[in-house]
């Protein structure tokens, strides 16, 4: 008893120390000696709306399990938890058979290089899976395709059509139009743009959309590939743009204090007239907004700009799955046009493949998003959502950098220099 506090301290500290150690236990590939009943575990990121997971489970049970006899258990984890446990689970053989995960070097690319996911190159040819070319490139590492692309996402600017009509404003066609509209909205006593950057990742999207419209798709490619330095004047200008918007009162007070949910609530409640974010918000807008909403690319300095595009989480097959054939059959189902149509109609997500929009029953807003995405995917003229294409270290520099710009901790030039250092 006499040493209780000290021991407690040591134990607590040791636990803290050990808390950061990832497990490297390498067990034999998950052979649990069970029978041959095929039951797959499908791990997805936790949905904001819990009913989405239930709907997905029911859809799989009805349209896949009944035909194939293969049971699929849909499991979910918060993204942050998945980041910490997925690699360990996959390596230990205790992980899911199929799991949805992001593309790009920090996500699927890292797993592919570690040999933790199955090479699907030949399966694409065998099953005839059709996805947009740009989407397939995002899940390709060293010429091998490792996953199915997740839903396509665009990032742009939503605006409240009713408020714009009341104030006599037209749809913005340039940055000057955005400034003029913001001033009019501010004068009317509303918040022009619902921007929150408390979590940090929102800042990556803000930079992505402003920069994509400013430099175009080729310019973004040059920046992400390293051909063009991040200290370029265009990058500094894109950072400065948000700082100026904040200083002009176009954003909520202290954007770094406002989280994403609060920013969307500001828009849904009609307190804010615009919100710069991604196409994933469409479903929530339809559920929560009782006004007409328009969705446009974030305008460029001299024109309408382009959408920034990216991919959400898509399915991969674990290299250690106990039942490779069943997993591939399930993947074939997930790649089917029928499943794509179901996701459009039930989850309001945009599949990474063409869908026949004539057969779909969707809202005008979502229909427009679908058409925009199809056009963009065909033309290839879209910007980049930076955070899915770069390293974790770059993302951290970008998230912190945008917050530092908002709070005055750093200048746009300093942040640009930090981004360049993180790139190299």
């Amino acid at each position: 008893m006499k040493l209780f506090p000290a021991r407690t301290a040591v134990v607590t500290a040791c636990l803290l120390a050990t808390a950061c150690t990832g497990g490297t236990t390498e067990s034999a590939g998950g052979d649990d000696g069970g029978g041959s009943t095929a039951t797959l575990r499908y791990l997805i990121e936790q949905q904001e709306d819990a009913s989405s997971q239930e709907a997905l489970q029911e859809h799989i049970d009805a349209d896949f399990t009944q035909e194939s006899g293969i049971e699929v258990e849909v499991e979910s984890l918060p993204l942050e938890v998945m980041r910490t446990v997925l690699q360990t689970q996959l390596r230990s053989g205790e992980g899911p058979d199929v799991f949805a995960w992001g593309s790009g070097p920090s996500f699927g690319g890292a797993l592919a290089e570690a040999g933790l996911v199955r090479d699907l190159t030949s399966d694409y040819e065998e099953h005839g899976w059709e996805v947009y070319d740009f989407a397939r490139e995002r899940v390709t590492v060293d010429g091998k395709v490792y996953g199915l692309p997740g839903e396509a996402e665009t990032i742009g600017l939503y605006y409240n059509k009713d408020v714009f009509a009341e104030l006599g404003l037209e749809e913005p066609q340039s940055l000057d139009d955005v400034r003029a509209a913001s001033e009019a909205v501010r004068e009317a006593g509303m918040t022009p743009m619902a921007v929150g950057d408390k979590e940090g990742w929102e800042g990556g999207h803000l930079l992505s959309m402003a920069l994509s419209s400013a430099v175009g798709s080729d310019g973004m490619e040059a920046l992400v590939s390293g051909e063009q330095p991040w200290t370029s004047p265009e990058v500094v200008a894109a950072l400065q743009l948000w700082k100026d918007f904040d200083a002009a009162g176009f954003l909520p007070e202290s954007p770094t204090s406002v989280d994403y949910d609060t920013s969307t609530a500001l828009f849904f409640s009609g307190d804010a007239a615009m919100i710069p974010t991604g196409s994933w918000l469409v479903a929530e807008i339809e559920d929560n907004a009782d006004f007409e909403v328009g969705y446009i690319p974030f305008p460029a300095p001299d024109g309408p700009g382009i959408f920034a595009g990216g991919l959400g989480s898509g399915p991969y097959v674990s290299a250690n799955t106990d039942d490779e054939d069943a997993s591939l059959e399930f993947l074939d189902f997930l790649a089917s046009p029928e499943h794509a149509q179901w996701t459009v109609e039930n989850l309001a997500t945009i599949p990474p493949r063409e869908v026949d929009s004539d057969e779909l029953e969707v809202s005008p807003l979502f229909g427009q998003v679908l058409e925009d995405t199809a056009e963009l995917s065909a033309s290839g003229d879209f910007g980049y959502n930076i955070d899915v294409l770069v390293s974790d270290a770059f993302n951290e520099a970008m998230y912190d950098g945008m917050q530092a710009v908002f709070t005055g901790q750093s200048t746009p030039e300093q942040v640009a220099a930090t981004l360049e250092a993180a790139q190299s």
Partner: protein
Amino acid sequence: MTAPAPALAPPADPRRPGPPGRRSHLPAVTRRAQARLGVLLVLPLLVVMAVFLLFPMANAIYYVFVDFDGIDLTPPFVGLDNFSELFRDPKVWAAFKNNAIWIVLGTIGPLVLGLALALLLWNVERGSVVYKVVFFLPYVLPQVAVAVVWGWIYEPSRGWLNKVLDLVGLGAFTTGWLGNPDTALYAVLATAIWATLGFVFVILLSALRTVDTDLVDAARLDGANGAQRLRHIVLPQIMPVFLMITTITLLGGFSVFEYVFVMTGGGPAGATDVLGTYAYSSAFQLNRISYGTSLALVITLMAVPFAVWLNRLQRRIALDGPGA
């Protein structure tokens, strides 16, 4: 604990004085059986300790000497590179500074406020249980829940803190509490102090109940004022408890994580990062497991001397009195 109770011990044989001291008079068979039973009884705990403490600890020590990214199972040996980088990393020093602020204010704040509250309610009989429950309640609430709710309170446009400030004419002081690098750490710290205050209050109030009030009355008759009575009469008598609470709150300053992680995530731009959150982000967001582990070990090494020193001080005072 291990000596058999005298009443159960066999009577001593006067013809056979036997060796003095600890040798048992039990038959050897019984002693062996007792030893086996003892081993069996402690075995579960030993296994738990080995699995959940010793093995992870050894694992952690291994990781600090390699560069493990969570993927490569054969990470390269890097010697002390993780530690040398750690000492050159400005973010570590910024986080350490925040920990230092937390340790000082997060220790002094609850102690001073908790002691003041306990003194106020020392002789209050009526409703004392209600006061205890009201003040203790935040301590038993999950830290995450407390952090989330306070996050709403601090929210600049809809949180009630700014609204109250506006209402009472202090609108000039409104700000984005958690998004302003000048206020964010202190806003989080205030939440933690609020949640810890009740614990300190209840423990100190219990300790005050043991204070010899005759001594207090005698000091009052001798002309000692309130501060003098507190310093020379009351505090010495509750010092062991006071030091115990100091140890707990001070060590909490080293290992602080939940409040910062939930309320600010270390932001804006690292302004509220503490060593715990920086270790977490290094290990799990940047996949630098070894670097994060090194940081966690450093936190451990910093906390242990304080814990040992305070514990020894507490024991000495408990045994010898505060003047020792």
